[in-house]
């Protein structure tokens, strides 16, 4: 038996890198230190595996070999007048680079799944900036931690322990020396841990953030309540924030995807920014998949833009809403969709999935997903971070190494190897 230490968990944006994986004859038999979600991923890689490349012939998916699947893919990309390359939540940065090269070479559009999760965070940032920090900074210093519209106990299970209220740092040691606030539309398991839980009505976040910010800026409010929350309660919270020595705001889809979207994030940024005039305050988005942050980083350094990049005119163009993959698909504008590290057929709204029926579909995935079942070409790949190495970025932008602990099933390559073959032929 072999034990791999310091393994990065390729599941959520926490990117815990202290896992110990026990492997016996190329089989993972145990995973230590991970939460149930992370463990589950390591132990279930054998399930629903896509083992052979598939191509659609007369409406039926039939097995083929890698060479033919690659050839077919290359031909489809070359013939496409507007290919869209989409996904990258669960791909390594190395794979993302190659996809961007494909998009650049073929005059396509490249977008990552942040368009359906933290896209508004990016748009908010482009208007306001963002006062942020790495997670360790919070562990060492934060005496106030606010979770807004996110539920780490269920979605990022080790977050509170490794980086949040339960962590222990140099200047602030442990739960007792920190205050924890949760703001959400329902009482989540995270909320039950909090010192203060503020329940808000759905879609009222913008108004509440605006009121909080006004209070932080010492304005008198002319109303007694804001969307059902008494101003007195908001005043208490504002005071708590101002009086913290170091405050941290974590926010999730509850904020990015509710009414107001990027404006909610702008309001949150403006609040945290103004708090810095009185104390120290930072904020970090709770990114879902383990490498969406990496996708944004690679996109940005190669093209200048974090997502929604359109190369159709020979250079990167950017206008989310116009050049966002989901909008392009919804408007029925692309003729080829190349998916890697995502399963849009399970995650996008039904009316958009309907549109996919008129679009050629290429999918690279380790397992048989609903999207694979709809594909014209599906190519199996290794699980990155388990069967292949690479780079990922934690939710706070800390880059980390994904490790290979077992070999993929025979004949299956990493996404990087598959993409390299495609790119080589496009050149």
């Amino acid at each position: 038996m072999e034990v791999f230490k310091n393994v990065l968990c390729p599941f959520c944006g926490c990117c815990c890198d202290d896992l110990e994986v026990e492997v016996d004859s190329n089989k993972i038999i145990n995973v230590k230190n991970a939460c149930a979600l992370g463990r589950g991923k390591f132990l279930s890689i054998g399930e629903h595996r896509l083992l052979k490349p598939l191509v659609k012939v007369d409406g039926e998916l039939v097995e083929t070999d890698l060479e033919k699947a690659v050839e077919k893919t290359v031909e489809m990309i070359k013939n496409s007048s507007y290919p869209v390359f989409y996904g990258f939540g669960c791909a390594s940065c190395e794979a993302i680079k190659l996809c961007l090269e494909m998009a650049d070479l073929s005059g396509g559009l490249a977008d990552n799944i942040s368009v359906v999760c933290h896209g508004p965070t990016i748009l908010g940032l482009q208007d306001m900036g963002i006062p942020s920090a790495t997670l360790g900074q919070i562990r060492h210093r934060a005496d106030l931690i606010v979770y807004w519209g996110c539920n780490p106990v269920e979605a990022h299970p080790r977050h509170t322990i490794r980086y949040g209220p339960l962590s222990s740092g140099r200047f602030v040691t442990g739960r007792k020396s920190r205050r924890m606030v949760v703001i959400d539309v329902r009482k989540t398991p995270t909320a039950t841990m909090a010192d203060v839980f503020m329940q808000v009505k759905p879609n009222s976040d913008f108004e509440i953030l605006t009121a909080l910010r006004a209070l932080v800026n010492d304005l008198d409010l002319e109303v007694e309540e804001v969307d059902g929350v008494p101003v007195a309660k908001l005043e208490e919270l504002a005071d708590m924030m101002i009086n913290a020595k170091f405050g941290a705001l974590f926010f999730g889809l509850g904020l990015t995807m509710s009414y107001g979207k990027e404006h909610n994030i702008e309001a949150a940024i403006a609040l945290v920014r103004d708090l810095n005039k009185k104390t120290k305050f930072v904020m970090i988005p709770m990114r879902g998949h383990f490498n969406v942050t990496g996708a944004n980083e690679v996109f940005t350094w190669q093209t200048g833009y974090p997502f929604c990049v359109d190369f159709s005119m020979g250079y990167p163009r950017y206008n989310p809403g116009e050049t966002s993959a989901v909008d392009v698909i919804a408007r029925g504008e692309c003729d080829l969709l190349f998916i890697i590290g995502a399963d849009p057929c399970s995650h996008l709204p039904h009316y958009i999935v309907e549109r996919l029926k008129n679009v050629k579909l290429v999918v690279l995935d380790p397992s048989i997903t609903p999207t694979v079942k709809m594909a014209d070409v599906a190519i199996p790949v290794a699980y990155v971070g388990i069967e292949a190495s690479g780079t990922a970025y934690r939710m706070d932008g800390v880059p980390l190494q994904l490790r290979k602990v077992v070999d993929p099933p025979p004949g299956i390559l990493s996404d990087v190897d598959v993409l390299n073959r495609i790119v080589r032929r496009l050149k």
Partner: protein
Amino acid sequence: MKIYQITPAYDFKLPIVADIAKPELFEEKQLSEVLNVEVYEGNRRKRFGELFKVKEAGEAEETTLEFIGDFSKVRRIGRRMSRGIIRVKGTAGIAFGEAMKGGRIIIEGLAGPWLGAKMRGGSIEVYGDAEGFLGGAYRGENIGMRGGSIVVHGKAGWNVGYKMKNGLIVVESDIGGFPGVHMSGGTVYVKGGCGRGAGAFMKNGRIIILGYIPSILASFSFEEIRASIRVEAERLKGRFYTFVGDLSEKGSGRLFVNADSNRHLSFYEQLIEEL
């Protein structure tokens, strides 16, 4: 000056960027040259004439382009136009009239998002509905519309007047949330109702809502009740709650809300005694 009728050569599926299509092009070039101008359809370079049928259709005082049919896939028509007339009998695509400086655009159907984005002058009139970012800016930019006027007889989407600095936007029916967000000048005048977030982050300018507004942001302060407001030559009469904001931005913009359509805001009237 001539009138040109332009129709799609076929049903478009892919996005087309036709930012060169404006009256100046037809004045400066022979028709045969215009037909040879390159335009992107998806990632393919096409000739204008491959995508569009163009025919001359009489004379007018100003060069007039009549787009007849479905142009919803065609983007940025009329970009930076400074004179002449564009008339759309059908549907207009994204960013129609982007950064236009002068002349007139008349859309007799639906318009897409970013209509008149970053407009500087001239006028746009839409008989159907418009979508989001009407007269808006692009991401990261500081300033959207700087001048001119946009009138929409139908509805409009979110973020009307996004980052607007000057000029006039009139929407006769309902609009989405966040009208006048980040605006620093100019007027957004909505005869219908709007969604939440009106005037968020505004520094200056005016927003007038005649219909229903769900709420006023906490960073706005009630100022007075006005009996009339001037919009260009028009004088609106009625009872208008007047708010100042966005105070968190140290803004001094004005949000005027018709009292009669917004009884749920009547509690502000109590503040008058206090004032």
